[in-house]
């Protein structure tokens, strides 16, 4: 018993060491390079960046503090991504369940889908102006197809044995949809949501870099414009933390809602 606990602690700390080692190594290398090589003329080291990040919590970068920038980006992601998740699930489910819907909308969907998000920015400004709406649209577009496709795939991959079993237990077509097909899609919905989240964050950054006066993406762009590499890197680090937090939250939600799909973890 005692032995086992020690073993477990040993294993856990081993994992933490393995995780941190490359990160710390990378930071040290970066710092050394910034201090002792010509890279130092081009960009600051990590200490300076992290310092700048902390300072930016109190002292505005451009119009806002970094947390305000993050809130702007967060709001855009929430609105654009949130509506993409809702409509993407509905669209994917309709594609999967209705032959008619599939025949009507699949070709159109396949036609529009290959157009990259960035390519929509000029038209989105034309349609929605330079304010928030055009950013919502870009995030929405970036996320939508990922959710829709994943849900559609989930419906196609429903285990026919489970459908047969449910029929034998007396399910009507309607009950089959709600008690078997949709529940068995939930893991696909979440995996679509994860991919869509990365795509949504990418989209918001692109939108903010091209057409915005605030947000984390704006920071990076503004830093480039003024040749302020510290600001660029501060934005990038903030973005990494932002993305990591969002993905972690979504994973927690999935673990709560989808406990049956996570074996022993």
């Amino acid at each position: 018993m005692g032995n086992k606990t020690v073993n477990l602690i040993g294993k856990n700390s081993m994992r933490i060491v393995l995780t941190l080692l490359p990160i710390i190594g990378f930071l040290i290398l970066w710092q050394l390079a910034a201090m002792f090589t010509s890279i130092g003329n081009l960009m600051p080291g990590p200490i300076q960046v992290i310092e700048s990040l902390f300072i930016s919590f109190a002292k505005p970068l451009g119009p806002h503090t970094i947390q305000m920038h993050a809130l702007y980006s967060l709001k855009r992601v929430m609105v654009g991504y949130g509506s993409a998740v809702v409509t993407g699930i509905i669209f994917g489910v309709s594609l999967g369940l209705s032959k008619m819907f599939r025949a009507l909308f699949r070709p159109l969907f396949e036609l529009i889908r290959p157009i990259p998000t960035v390519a929509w920015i000029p038209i989105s400004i034309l349609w929605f102006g330079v304010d928030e709406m055009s950013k919502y649209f870009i995030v929405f577009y970036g996320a939508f197809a990922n959710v829709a496709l994943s849900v559609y795939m989930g419906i196609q991959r429903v285990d026919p044995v489970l459908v047969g079993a449910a029929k034998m237990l007396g399910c009507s077509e309607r009950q089959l949809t709600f008690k078997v097909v949709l529940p068995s899609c939930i893991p696909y919905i979440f995996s679509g949501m994860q991919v869509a989240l990365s795509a949504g964050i990418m989209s918001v950054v692109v939108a903010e870099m091209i057409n915005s006066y605030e947000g984390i993406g704006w920071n990076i762009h503004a830093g480039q414009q003024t040749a302020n590499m510290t600001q660029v890197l501060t934005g990038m680090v903030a973005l990494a933390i932002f993305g990591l937090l969002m993905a972690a939250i979504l994973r927690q939600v999935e673990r709560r809602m989808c406990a049956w799909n996570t074996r022993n973890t």
Partner: protein
Amino acid sequence: MADSEVDTRQREILVRVRDLTKRFDDLLVLDNISFNVYRHEFLCIVGPTGCGKTTFLNSLTRLYDITSGEILLDNEPVDLRKHNISYVFQEASAMPWLTVEDNIRFGLKIRKFSKDVADARVEDVIKLVNLQKFRNYYPAQLSIGMLQRVVIARAFATNPTLLLMDEPYGQLDIELRYMLEDELIAIWEKTRATVVFITHNIEEAVYLGQRILVLTNKPATIKREIVNDLPRPRNIADHKFVELRETVTQLIKWW
């Protein structure tokens, strides 16, 4: 033997299969099969691998359309929404997103049993299959043997008029199979359900069945009906048991 055949004929017919034929395009799988299933009996159907056993059950339940012939349950064509038939598939079929308890409750909810009745039924069958301690587990956390018990509990929970089982223990190791076979017999004796049990394991058929239908190779027809009135609990080493097992083996060997 003669006595039991008379006894069989006096029993009430639950399922009447007449001239059942099933083709998949050009492939004739079931060739003009006729027989009865009697109420409360335990019927085993044995046949070689690939002869059409699963096809037969799927035709009976209307999961497949039949080519010709007639299948009547209580003198009516089978209707899954109306008739209470349970079917334990060859493959694992517990719903992964439901706990053991909710899986067992699934059919009771669909068939709109009142909450009190459903609760009582769930408690009964969960005890029968010995899964009380695992009621809040998800299928991914269970072993194959436990999963099969969940499915069997689910099948018995609705108190089905007819219980169909398609090689439910085919994937299990021998010890577990013996245990579940005994469990099944106990449940059957308690609930008085009518069971049609399909297997290609001859020993299993002789151990379980009151009556055994031996099928031929594809296209399947009924080669022989055997009444098995060996007393329970049966002993697989008993010479009468061995004798009967040999008889069935010979029937399957000589086409």
